[in-house]
């Protein structure tokens, strides 16, 4: 039987009187391609922020491999094996594409800081190894030609892909993609679909993604959770979601249901 990677149980967060995410419960199994959708302001990104430790849940639990991670600092959660991309791209703008990815890979560094300050061979070897490994990831994401370009000089679509490469460099078990296809043209979106599938199959990762483009989500994800006003309104395979009256109501308004 497949193994549960991430389990949200009644995860709730409240900002003053506003309940941004209310009792959301879902499980992710190993190797899932899981979609999180909902209208604007439904609490999708807040949900990501809960999982990655940006916010601490007010109630409920978030378990990763059976261990509670709700409220741990983001860096700890990244070390446990959850990494994410951002809706509004957050690359390290003064670093090159390659260096951005090395920051992700640096999570696994072993040499202490003083060996680097003294410029000793172990630190140099490690730097070289991390750079080579990051270079391979750039190749996977089709960015090898841009390795030495400043990340802020990259075109938008490549910045999105670079964010995914950077997150993959931490070798997460679970990768969270926040609107990876936003602003891409149909051709780029198709490319991205196959890339995400490739990530899942070749790198043994579980993927949870937020996306507004319905065709993209329906074509890619095997299971979907729909949020509206912070509440989970539907949960199931794409076909069931597509025909769920509650989902149609949330997206199009009551008259259409």
């Amino acid at each position, binding site marked *: 039987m497949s193994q549960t990677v991430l389990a949200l149980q009644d995860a709730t967060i409240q900002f003053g009187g506003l309940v941004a995410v209310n009792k959301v419960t879902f499980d992710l199994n190993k190797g899932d391609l899981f979609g999180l959708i909902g209208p604007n302001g439904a609490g999708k990104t807040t949900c990501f922020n809960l999982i*990655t430790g*940006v916010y601490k849940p007010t109630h409920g639990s978030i378990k990763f491999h059976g261990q509670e991670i709700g409220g741990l*600092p*983001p*860096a700890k959660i*990244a*070390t446990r094996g959850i*990494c*994410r991309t*951002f809706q509004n791209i*957050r*690359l*390290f*703008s*003064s*670093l090159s594409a*390659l*260096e951005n990815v*090395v*920051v*992700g*890979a*640096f*999570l696994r*560094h072993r*040499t202490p*800081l003083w060996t*680097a*300050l*003294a*410029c000793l061979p172990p*630190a*140099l070897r*490690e*730097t070289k190894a*991390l*750079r*080579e490994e990051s*270079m391979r990831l750039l190749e996977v994401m089709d960015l090898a030609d841009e*390795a*030495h370009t400043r990340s802020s000089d990259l075109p938008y679509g490549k910045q999105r892909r670079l964010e995914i490469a*950077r*997150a993959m460099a*931490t070798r997460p078990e679970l990768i969270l993609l926040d609107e990876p296809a936003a602003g891409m043209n149909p051709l780029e979106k198709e490319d991205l679909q196959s890339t995400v599938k490739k990530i899942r199959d070749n790198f043994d990762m579980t993927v949870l993604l937020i996306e507004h483009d319905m065709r993209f989500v329906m074509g890619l994800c095997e299971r979907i959770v729909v949020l509206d006003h912070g509440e989970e309104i539907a949960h199931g395979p794409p076909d069931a979601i597509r025909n769920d009256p509650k989902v149609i109501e949330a997206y199009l308004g009551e008259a259409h249901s």
Partner: protein
Amino acid sequence: MKFWVVRLVSLAVAFGFAFGADAWIAGSMPSAYRLAVLAGLFVTLAVSLNLINGITGQFSIGHAAFYMVGAYTTGFVSNQFYAQQPLGQPMWLIAMALLGAAASAVAGLVVGLPSLRLRGDYLAIVTLGFGEILRIVTQNISQIGGSYGMNVKPFGGPVQTLWVVLLLAFLCVSICRNLLKTAHGLPFVAVRDDEVASSAMGVRVSSVKVTAFVIGSAFAGAAGAMLAHAETFISPDMFRMDVSFIILTMVVLGGTGSITGSVVAAVVLFGIPEYLRTLQDPITKLPLAVPGQALLGSLVAVGLTVWGLREVSRRVHGNVQNRAVAYGGTLLGGAVVAWLFSVVFGLIPQIAALKFDVNMLRMVIFALTLIVLMLLRPQGIFGHHEFSWRWLGGLLGRRPREATA
């Protein structure tokens, strides 16, 4: 292999430079020892602040406080042990540098920890406040001289101090350089660029910030220790807020984040006022004075030249020769304008009667230099670039090799 060759060449050049500076100063003007020591200290201060401010992006403007902690701690300790003289001169200086570094590292930790929650302007205010508090507290402790200052009994002569200072500056530069050369430096820059994203990538933002503060302030402390032993007198007035600002100016002017920039800006900014101070009239040997028309004429010319250079940088593109001609032409034009205007102003008797002492004007010239440089190169002298042997090779005409991954 190539790596070690480059390292050894760098080390050899550094030693060559130190020997050369030593010999040159001893030969031509022994009075410049003090200036060389101070220039070396400012290099150390600027490069260490660059680590905190430029590389890690923590806007700290209390660097003089760490400088002071190093100076006072070692000054006090030195005075206690002066009677016994437990170590030889150079060894004692090195020991004092280490002690100053340790004391300031603790101070850096104390500032670094509560500052973790603050960013940008707020952090600047806290560091500024910290600096002022420390200075005023020192001013009111009579055991260490209070506002009269404290005499530090010197262990080393100026020669040894210069050597230790150069060693310190070299060490500070190499440590920062090594950090940026290895993957360990990337999290520091990542924290500067985006804290949220770095923590999501597993970077422990707090420990990176504190590390930067501790290393940066340790070097400032070692510099303070050397100051105390080179000057043999320290007072709270030597560590006022404006010292922090000068160091910050060096970092920004050199190009925030660029180590080379900090070094060059430290030497230039320290050098300009000191150089102007020594200017003499070649005939009368009195301090150099300029007539009013020359001063006004050059002010007009500087303004026009800055405007011209900006226009050139905006409009003239293409190959190096074209640009060189355009820039050279603008500078030449500036000189002609200066001459023309000084002739015109000379016709006005009230202006021609004025005499300005360059020594008196040195801070004005200093400030003008800052303004002109910032107008022409807002990104700093070096921007984000660094000196490297490969770059030098390219400059000398050898084709630089393709950058390797």
